[in-house]
């Protein structure tokens, strides 16, 4: 990584003011996304993985407040004006969400919606917009692209809709795609189709942030992985290194908890006992300490900072140097 990162997040925190007090959804998260790379952000519900990137794009709910910094190609996004954000959102940074039905307008044809992406921004003439819409649908592998342009969202299946949502996100040829659980609602066979589309887009040089809880999806597409727990990034590592030897005990436990199709696993799955802290719960020390098999006295006093180490970064007082898991 010689060039400056495409997206650089530093000490980003997100707070929500709720009737029950302040909830820290994201705490001092720092990460970089390089041009053309795919960073997977993995965590369980409530770990803050979605809020982190919504905050970068100024899309938090009204009660949310952000601190820290998020620079896209050097330009600060946090606190930027709506006009400045709108010049970036949907144009240079595109998004895909879990439910494609929410991304598509039900009463407009697919062709109209795809075309609008370019026409509203003055990026193309109506004729060009039509041609690029057609090309975008073909690019995501939808058969009969010409007739799909005339159809409405309800006439498509979930997988087809998600592919249209991806096509729409790619219309402006963005530099970064943020995909938040893009395949979670889909059947495995359809998920495979959508992942293939994303992989192709990556080969064309698109950088991607893939927010997911599915470690199988991560293994097949990501270059690096950031693992989040209770609002903090606990480990960032190249994908092969992480899967071969996770350094953070939570990352290790998460990998062990996934049943594998290729192994005739019988007996108990390794599970992580206990629950993650509830949002708003005040945690003294490391948030994972109550569930951690490697917990030491210091873990209950002090929250560990995310410390870079060679190709990875780990936030743990007692990281696993040599994990017991076979690689």
């Amino acid at each position: 990584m010689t060039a400056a990162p495409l997206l650089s997040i530093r000490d980003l925190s997100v707070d929500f003011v709720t009737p029950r007090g302040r909830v820290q959804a994201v705490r001092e998260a720092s990460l970089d996304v390089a041009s053309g790379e795919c960073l997977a952000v993995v965590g369980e519900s409530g770990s803050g993985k979605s809020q982190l990137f919504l905050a970068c794009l100024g899309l938090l709910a009204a009660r949310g407040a952000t601190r820290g910094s998020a620079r896209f190609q050097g330009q600060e996004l946090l606190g930027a004006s709506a006009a400045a954000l709108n010049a970036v959102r949907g144009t240079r940074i595109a998004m895909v969400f879990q439910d494609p039905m929410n991304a598509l307008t039900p009463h407009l044809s697919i062709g109209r919606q795809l075309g609008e992406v370019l026409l509203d921004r003055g990026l193309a003439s109506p004729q060009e917009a039509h041609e690029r819409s057609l090309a975008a649908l073909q690019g995501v592998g939808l058969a009969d692209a010409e007739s799909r342009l005339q159809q409405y969202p309800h006439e498509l299946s979930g997988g087809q809709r998600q592919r249209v949502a991806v096509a729409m996100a790619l219309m402006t040829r963005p530099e970064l795609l943020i995909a938040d659980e893009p395949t979670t609602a889909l059947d495995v066979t359809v998920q495979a189709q959508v992942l293939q589309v994303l992989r192709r887009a990556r080969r064309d040089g698109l950088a991607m942030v893939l927010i997911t809880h599915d470690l199988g999806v991560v293994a097949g597409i990501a270059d690096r992985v950031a693992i989040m727990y209770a609002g903090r990034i606990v480990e960032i590592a190249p994908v092969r290194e992480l899967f071969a030897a996770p350094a953070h005990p939570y990352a290790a436990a998460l990998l062990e908890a996934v049943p594998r199709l290729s192994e005739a696993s019988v007996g108990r799955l390794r599970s992580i006992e206990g629950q993650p802290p509830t949002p708003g719960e005040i945690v003294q020390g490391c948030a994972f300490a109550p569930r951690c098999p490697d917990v030491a006295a210091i873990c209950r006093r002090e929250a560990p900072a995310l410390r870079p180490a060679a190709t990875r970064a780990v936030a743990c007082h007692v990281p696993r140097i040599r994990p017991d898991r076979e690689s």
Partner: protein
Amino acid sequence: MSDPLLQVKGLGVRFPVRRRRFGAPPQWLTALDDVHLEIEAGRSLGVVGESGCGKSTLARAILALVEPHAGEIRWRGAAVRRSDPAGLRRMRRELQVVFQDPFGSLDPRMSIGESVAEALDALEGLTESAAVRSRVAAVLEEVGLDPSLARRYPHELSGGQCQRAAIARATVVRPRLLICDEAVSALDVSVQAQIVNLLSALSVRHGMALMFISHNLAVVRHLCDEVLVLYLGHVVERGPRESVFSAPRHPYTRALLAAVPEPDPASAPAAEPIVVLPGRSGAAPPARGCVFQARCPRVDALCASQSPSLAEAGPAHVTACHHWQTLEAWPAGSR
């Protein structure tokens, strides 16, 4: 050999769909067609397939929540009929269900303890308060919940705790069979592992059979003795776990297995890694021939004209494919 716990014979379920005009005969959507299965006491059966394949309809038919138009369901040798409320009540004491969304299956206005006690009252007629309390406390402890949570309400619990409560409510009457309809699908990975372990432990401890409906093939491989693969309401393959997962004999089962991304970057080929099954599981099966013909890589004229029947492909392993004997070696490619 006594009767199996559950026998499903030639089960067919269909739903009326929109009429073209008023007074026209209804059109039917076939949700299940000629489904056969058996579950022996203490065994576990995994039911897999894409959305719309009829997995949940199968559970609903077994629970007598939908009326089949063909075939029959026998519970411990006796036919189950929706017209026999006393028989249904007897069966429901022994046959319980856990659904995907635990918040949807617990009454938000009842405490966890009340929800569990309600099952005891309804199915065993047990209302004497000391006995109820001790049974509730015992079952909560068994599913890994602190008995003090009996006073809490569903909104005060996490998703995993709620699912444990739903399992407590279902198992407090000691059912012989627990149907789990996507019971771990909405849970986070670490909690999912806890619940899978819990179901497995309950099944072993009480000899409780499981029918585990899931789209998660890895969990099914982990938990179930036998697997049944449904496609558009038809059983396309059924067999012992090891046999189906290590030597699948139907192109659909193979496509499903190949589509599961393995959490191992070393095994994931970089370029064009997965067999991508074209199309989707549509709503209407073809009028003639094999149900899978539209998406099958091995389709030929025979498949278009004639529906394959279930053929014996191994010990207790059946497949509905004309070409099962000539499918290429498995695992295909790098898998």
